[in-house]
């Protein structure tokens, strides 16, 4: 297990899951998940609700623990008890379904807070970067708005900027458009697409099949805690082989 000192190089998977198992009490959620993600790849995890998609993504940045197997992020063993959590969190950014912004801070302060307080970076430099990030997620002019004054889509884009301010290598998106109005979904998806185009490694749990097809390099379909089927989107959506995949796709497409 003690692989924290392993040097990671870019020709190895940036995220590597091997036979990951997890249960909540006696209820098994992940029953042996293995997958490798290379730097710059965008993968989408789809599947029926309760299939363990969100749990899987939360395990990657140690918000949930696992009972078996291993998760390596840039060579860091995520569930090693001796793991320096901060080292992991600097590499992995996460965006949630409910945005989870700090409601008492403005958009700009939300983006600035972690680099200033956690990384102890110079506030003036962080502010410059934060303003650029807010421009990047197309929220110029909303710097001084509080989350409560922004729409869901705008809040979610602030949340993306907030994660990016920590300069992560990998971004996790946990059903980030599931709580949004249909018309604001697009603005968030455009932001993620921009990120993917810039070469950010992205892991998305999503119900947006059209988006998954468009942006993903690889699709994983999970059901009952296992990966049933996976492959590049073109083949995956055109010719699903497993009957469970076919049934799911016929319901959502």
């Amino acid at each position: 297990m003690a692989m924290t000192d392993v040097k990671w190089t870019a020709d190895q998977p940036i995220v590597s899951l091997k036979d990951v198992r997890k249960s909540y009490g006696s209820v098994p959620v992940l029953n042996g998940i293995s997958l490798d993600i290379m730097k710059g790849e965008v993968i989408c995890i789809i599947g029926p609700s309760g299939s363990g998609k969100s749990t899987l993504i939360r395990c990657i940045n140690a918000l949930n623990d696992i009972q078996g197997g291993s998760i390596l992020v840039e060579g860091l063993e995520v569930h090693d008890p001796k793991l320096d959590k901060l080292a992991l969190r600097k590499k992995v950014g996460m965006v949630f379904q409910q945005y989870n912004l700090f409601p008492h801070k403005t958009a700009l302060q939300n983006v600035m807070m972690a680099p200033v307080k956690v990384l102890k970076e110079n506030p003036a430099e962080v502010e410059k970067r934060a303003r650029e990030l807010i421009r990047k997620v197309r929220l110029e002019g909303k710097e001084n708005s509080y989350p409560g004054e922004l729409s869901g889509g705008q809040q979610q884009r602030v949340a993306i900027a907030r994660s990016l301010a920590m300069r992560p290598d990998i971004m996790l998106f946990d059903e980030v458009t599931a709580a949004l109005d249909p018309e604001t979904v697009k603005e968030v998806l455009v932001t993620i697409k921009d990120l993917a185009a810039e070469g950010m490694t992205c892991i998305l749990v999503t119900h947006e099949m059209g988006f998954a097809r468009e942006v993903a390099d690889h699709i994983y379909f999970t059901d009952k805690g296992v990966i049933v089927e996976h492959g590049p989107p073109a083949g995956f959506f055109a010719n699903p082989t497993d009957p469970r995949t076919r049934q799911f796709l016929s319901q959502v497409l």
Partner: protein
Amino acid sequence: METVETFFQWLRQSYGIKITIGYDAWDRAQFLAGLWTTVKLSVLSIIFSLIVGVIGAFAQGSKYLILRAPIGIFVTFFRNTPPLVQLYFFFFALGSVLRVTTETGGSAPMVSAFSWAVISLSLFAGALNTEIFRSGIEAVPKSTLEASESLGFTRFQTYLYVVLPLALRISLPSLGTNLVNLVKTTSLAYAIAVPELLYAAAQIWSEQLNVREMMTVLLLTYILLVAVLVWILGRWEKALRIPGYGV
């Protein structure tokens, strides 16, 4: 000043209403000293009770029983006993143990009556503040804390920068009620001869035999004191208000 004194003299001569603090310099000085003592008692107790509340609520959320258990006992003890009995316990039970020998060979208390009042009142209100802050902390969504955890904040940083500012806003209404109660409870210090407002008033009325007048003055003074506190709390609540946020 002179017209004020003339007015109170006239009130006494024409109607027999003896508001002595209006024209008697000695009584006035005594009363103002009492008022000042009550203000000091209130401010110090408010500050310390808030500190006790913040630390208590933080310890109560700890995963270590060794931190949680003493706070639980502390809160139960101070919530389930009368504040006057607590004050007596500190002053008479603890105070009689904590004594120092003076230079002349006599024995003197280590802690003054005023200090015992501050300690006792701070712990009493602090126990209630602990519960108030705890309910505020529990009202902060867990998902917000996960976001801060995933950004690399430690538990303490999360508490300081996220939980506390939000919990404070949620707690403010009940906190205000408790602090108003605390100001009123300072009058219990009378029982251990701290020369606060009630004590000063009682001194005056037993000398001047103007119980009715001094009682009225006393009540009005407390109303004024509490009104000032409520006004400050209102300003605070306004200053902390977040645009577009529920609480």
